[in-house]
C-alpha cells in the first residue's frame, strides 16, 4: 500500500502522481520504472519514474489514461492508497561521460526523459533535449526539461507550439549540423523506430526504452520478451533500455497489440461497474 501525496492533471487525460515510497525513492536510478496495481482486482502495469525525492521519500510518475488500469489509477486521490507498488525496476541507464547527447521525448516519453537529461547533465554531458507532442496542450513538463538540459527544442505535430512537425524532423536537422555522440529516445514505438532508422546510417549510438506488455516485471514470466540483435531479452530485467539499432520493432508492435479485444472488454466492464 502506497499513499498518494499529490495529484495533478498536466493535460487532458495526463496525470502526475506523487507517491510515498521511501525505499523506491532512496534506491531509484536514472531510467528505471515501477509496476503497480491501483486495486486488488487490477492488472499490474509498468510506469516510468519521472522524478523522486530521497529526502521526502516520494516518487513521481506521469501516466496517460488509455484503458482500464490507467482509468482505475486516475480515480485515486490524494490520501488514497495504491494497492501494490513495486520498484525501482529495470537496469538503470549507465551515467557516463558520453559528450554531446540528444534526449528525445515524445508524448508520454517526456516525463522519463526528465531524470535522464538531468542525470546526464550532472555527469558533465552537454544535453540537448527535443520534446514533442501532437498539439500544444499535450506538450507537458516543458519548463522542467528546459532546466535539466543545456538546450531545448519543442515540436508539435500541428504546429500549435514550437516547431511544426515530428521530433524526428528536428532531430534530423540537428544531426545534420552538429556532431552528436549519443541519442536517447523514449516515446511511442513508431517514434523510437523512426529515430533508430534515422541514426543507424549515421552510426550514432541510439538507446531506446521499450514498453512491451509486462506482468510480474521481476523476470519470472517472459511476457515482456523482445528481440534485440536476434536474441530474446526480457525487457523488465534485461532492459527496458536497448540499442535501438538492434531492436525488432515489428515484433514489439505485434506483441503490444495482443490483447486489444480483451482490453476493450475490461474497460467496458469497469465502466459499467462504477
Amino acid at each position: 500500500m502506497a499513499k498518494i501525496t499529490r495529484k495533478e492533471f498536466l493535460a487532458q487525460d495526463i496525470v502526475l502522481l506523487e507517491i510515498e515510497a521511501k525505499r523506491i525513492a532512496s534506491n531509484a536510478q536514472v531510467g528505471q520504472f515501477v509496476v503497480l496495481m491501483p486495486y486488488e482486482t487490477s492488472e499490474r502495469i509498468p510506469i516510468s519514474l519521472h522524478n523522486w525525492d530521497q529526502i521526502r521519500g516520494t516518487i513521481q510518475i506521469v501516466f496517460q489514461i488509455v484503458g482500464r488500469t490507467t482509468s482505475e489509477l486516475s480515480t485515486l486521490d490524494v490520501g488514497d492508497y495504491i494497492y501494490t507498488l513495486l520498484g525501482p525496476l529495470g537496469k538503470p541507464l549507465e551515467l557516463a561521460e558520453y559528450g554531446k547527447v540528444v534526449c528525445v521525448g515524445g508524448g508520454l516519453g517526456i516525463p522519463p526523459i526528465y531524470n535522464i537529461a538531468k542525470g546526464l547533465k550532472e555527469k558533465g554531458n552537454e544535453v540537448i533535449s527535443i520534446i514533442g507532442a501532437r498539439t500544444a496542450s499535450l506538450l507537458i513538463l516543458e519548463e522542467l526539461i528546459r532546466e535539466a538540459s543545456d538546450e531545448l527544442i519543442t515540436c508539435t505535430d500541428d504546429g500549435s507550439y514550437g516547431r511544426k512537425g515530428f521530433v524526428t524532423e528536428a532531430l534530423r536537422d540537428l544531426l545534420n549540423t552538429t556532431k552528436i555522440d549519443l541519442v536517447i529516445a523514449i516515446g511511442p514505438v513508431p517514434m523510437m523506430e523512426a529515430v533508430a532508422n534515422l541514426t543507424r546510417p549515421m552510426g550514432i549510438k541510439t538507446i531506446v526504452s521499450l514498453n512491451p506488455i509486462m506482468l510480474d516485471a521481476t523476470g519470472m514470466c517472459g511476457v515482456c520478451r523482445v528481440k534485440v540483435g536476434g536474441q530474446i531479452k526480457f525487457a523488465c530485467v534485461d532492459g527496458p533500455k536497448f540499442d535501438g539499432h538492434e531492436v525488432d520493432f515489428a515484433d514489439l508492435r505485434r506483441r503490444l497489440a495482443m490483447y486489444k479485444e480483451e482490453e476493450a472488454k475490461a474497460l467496458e466492464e469497469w465502466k459499467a461497474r462504477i
Partner: protein
Amino acid sequence: MEGKDIERRIPIGERPPEERIKDFEEVCLGYTKEEAIAEAKRCLTCSRPLCVEGCPVGINIPAFISYIKEGNFPQALEEIKKKNLLPSICGRVCPSEYQCESKCVLGKIGAPIAIGALERAASDYGEENHLCEGNSPSHSVGRVAVIGSGPAGLTCAAELARSNIEVVVFEALHEFGGVLSYGIPSFRLPRRIIQKQIETLKAMGVKLEKNILVGRTIPFRDLLMKEKFQAVFIATGAGLPQLLGINGENLEGVYSANEYLTRVNLMRADQFPRYGTPIKRGKRVAVIGGGNVAIDAARVALRLSAEEVYIVYRRTEEEMPARRVEIEHAKEEGIKFLYLLSPIEIKGNGEKELVCKRMALLDERDASGRRKVRETEEIFNLKADVIIIAIGQKPNPLIPSLEPTLRRGKEGEIIVDEEMRTSLEAVWAGGDIASGAATVIMAMGMAKKAAESIKRYLGVT
C-alpha cells in the same frame, strides 16, 4: 487385517472429473478420519522402516501413522512437525510415490501405504489444537533477512523464529508463497492452506514484507550493512522460464507456463473481466513438456473452458517427471497425451500450427536411467490456438547478476556447501535457487539445514 485386505489401499476421495473441470476447487478430497484410521492400520510399523529412508527430511513415518491408528490426529501432526513444518502443503504436493511410498515394504506385495494422504489427514484433522508453537519472540537473539517467500524462505523463517531469532521475509510479488501461490493451481493446493501457513508465521513473530525486490528495492549489500541484519538467506527460487528458441515463439497466444499460470493463480484471469488481467482462452490448447508444470498448465487450460487440451512430450509416459497421480487426474479429465514429439516451429496466427519432429525411442539410457530419444525426419503438425511452453525453469538470475562475487554454477544456481553457506560471508542460500528446479520438500530440507547453520553462526542453540 489379513489376506487381500492388506494389499489394497483405502481409496482416496476425489471429485468426479466432469464436475471438477468446471471450477478451481480442490480435486482430491483426502481421507475422512475413519478412512485414514483404516489405511493407517495397514501399516506394519516396521522396526527398520524403509519408508523413512525415502523421505528427504526423515519424518518418523511409522510413529505418526501409529498415532493415526489410535485416532490421535493432533499427536500425529506433532510427530510430523518435528521434521516438516508444512505438512498441509507437503501432504498435498509431495511426489510421495517417488519418495517414501516407493520404498514401503507393502509395495512388494501390493499397494504401499498412502503416506502422503495420511500426512494430509494428520494436518486436516490435527490442526485445531496447536499450529503455532511459541508466540512473538520475547527477546530477540539475532536478526536475519530471508529473501523470497516460497517453501524454502517460509521454512527457514519458521525454524529461526522458533529459536527467538528476529526474521524479516522480503517478497517481490504482492502475495506470499512463491510457486505455491503463483504456480501450483488452487485445485491442487487451495489458497487457504497457504494463507494459514503465512498467518502461523506471523503469529510466531516473523515479519513479512511484500513488494520488495531485493537487489532493486533494497540493494543486496544494504541488508548486512545499512539494515543491520546479521545473516541473509537467499531463497529466490528457479523462476526463469526456459523457451524453445524456435520460430513463432513470439506469436500471440504463445505463453511460458509461468506466465500462463501466474495470470490465473496470482492475477485471477479466470475471473476476467472483473479482474483486469486478460488471458487467451484457447479452444485447442497444446502444452509442451512433461513435468508437473506442464500438467498444471494443461489442467488450468481445461478449466478455462478449452475444448481440447494436448500434452506434447518428447519422450514417453514412463519418462515423464510429473507426479503419477496428476498424470492420472489429467487423463481422467480428458487431456490427451502425445508422446515422442519435439516442436521445431510455430506457424500462423490466431489458429496456429505446432510443427513437431517425431522422435524415436532408443534402447540406450542416459545418466538418469531414462531411455534416450533421437529425432527422425517424420513431421507431425498439431493445430492449436494457445500454446504453452513448460520445458523448465532456471534459477532466478537477479541477485547473482548484481553480486558477481556470489559463486554460481553452470545452470546459474548459487553454489553452497553442505551447510548451505554461499561464497559470501554471512550469506546462505537454499531451495530451487541453489538446487535448480526441484521440489517443495527438497527446498524445505535445504532451508532447515541453512537455519541450523545460521543458528550456530549466531551462537544460538
